[in-house]
């Protein structure tokens, strides 16, 4: 009973940072925008006669590494929250602890989706060698 009260207080929603769950898709969107703007501005202003795309590829590579690092950290945090004080996958009870674990699972799944989407965006740069 005492432990339940402790959990109820420790994992109460007022301590939650719900924005943390949206960090992975936000980084994915930011990565897409950065890649798009970099390629558009480079090709419009600086590509030169050879239409070289190497600089843009390097930039997209750096953006991707940074994005995957942030998304990976978020996903790992979410996974750890989901596994917190429980070994099984279920989090169906109407308790602060289960809601805490559910948000962790949601963060982890969003991070997985964002990782795939970010890599899909970056893949485009592998296939294009110039601004044409």
């Amino acid at each position, binding site marked *: 009973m005492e432990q339940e009260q402790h959990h109820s207080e420790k994992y109460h929603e007022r301590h939650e940072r719900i924005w943390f769950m949206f960090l992975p898709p936000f980084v994915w969107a930011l990565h897409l925008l950065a890649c798009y703007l970099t390629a558009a501005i480079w090709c419009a202003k600086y590509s030169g006669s050879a239409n070289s795309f190497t600089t843009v590829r390097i930039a997209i590579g750096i953006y991707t590494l940074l994005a995957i690092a942030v998304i990976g950290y978020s996903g790992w945090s979410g996974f750890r929250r989901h596994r917190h004080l429980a070994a099984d*996958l279920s989090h169906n009870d109407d308790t602060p602890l289960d809601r805490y674990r559910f948000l962790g699972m949601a963060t982890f799944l969003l991070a*997985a989706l964002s990782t*795939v989407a970010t890599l*899909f965006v970056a*893949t*485009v740069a*592998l*296939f*294009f*060698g110039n601004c*044409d």
Partner: protein
Amino acid sequence: MKVIEMPAASDAVKAKLICAGILISGCSGSQSALSPAGAGAEQIASLFWWMAGGATIIWVIMIALSIYTLHLNPDAHHRQKSALFIIGGGAIAPTIILTILLIYGLNLLPALLARPPAGTLQIEVQGYQWWWRVRYPNQSGEPIELANEIRLPRGEPVEFILSSKDVVHSFWIPSLGGKVDMIPGRTTHLTLHPTKTGRFRGACAEYCGASHAYMNFTVDVVEKAEYDEWLAQQSADRLAPRNEAAERGEELFLQTGCGACHTIRGTEADGTIGPDLTHIGSRNSLGADMFVNNRENLQNWIAHVSALKPGVKMPEFRALSDDEYQSLSKYLEQLK
């Protein structure tokens, strides 16, 4: 004798049949990406069929699983196995399939977008609301200017140099290849490689105003010798009027101000606002592939252009008499 009455098809069935008919009609014809006549279009059609085939397989598997879980084995399933199945089939498998399709699709693009080798035939196309200015290279000087119609030699790459003089248009000949936007202030490129002779249809694929749907063109792919002969004919000045009505038509053309917007090489008419009409009589269609090119449609076009093509810049010449309309249309018709 007993007559068996067949039940009348419901409205829903009729609607489905009509929709299926419309969809199937898109699989062939002069404006179908699924009936390729060019190297690029063949690759795009191949991509489409691979994706359609993959989607069909996934659909069949999903329906089979639904039938299995709802009807064949509706009892409770093993929790952990089900969870693994959901993760595998719902997340991992789609990711792998999408990755393969993405790489396959992206792999096609560089070849489709690559610039052609030096010496390739270059045709300049400018988009206007709502027609196409087409310029062919001319060894002996100024480019040969035509409109709303393109002729290409079979078996050779052709590079289109695309631009727009007003709003964003998009140049697309579905049977020959992909589409490329025509952007004001920029020049874009598209290389096509026709592999079959025939008549195809091109269209503006980017909404560009009231008469966007009327901004089309025909494309004739012919053998090289026929192409050279045609281009030589198109590069010549206009044919002189052959009869009295056509002579009157030319006089009217010059007197009523048509020449301020249109060029007819070999006359004083040298306007560049509208399409070049030097060989309008030899074209397949009128008004950017709106009507068959004949005398009656020419006359209607001159008299009722705003009603036929809303928003068009050409004014209607309502002050002319019927005889004058006829003279003008006879003159334009014989400009082969």
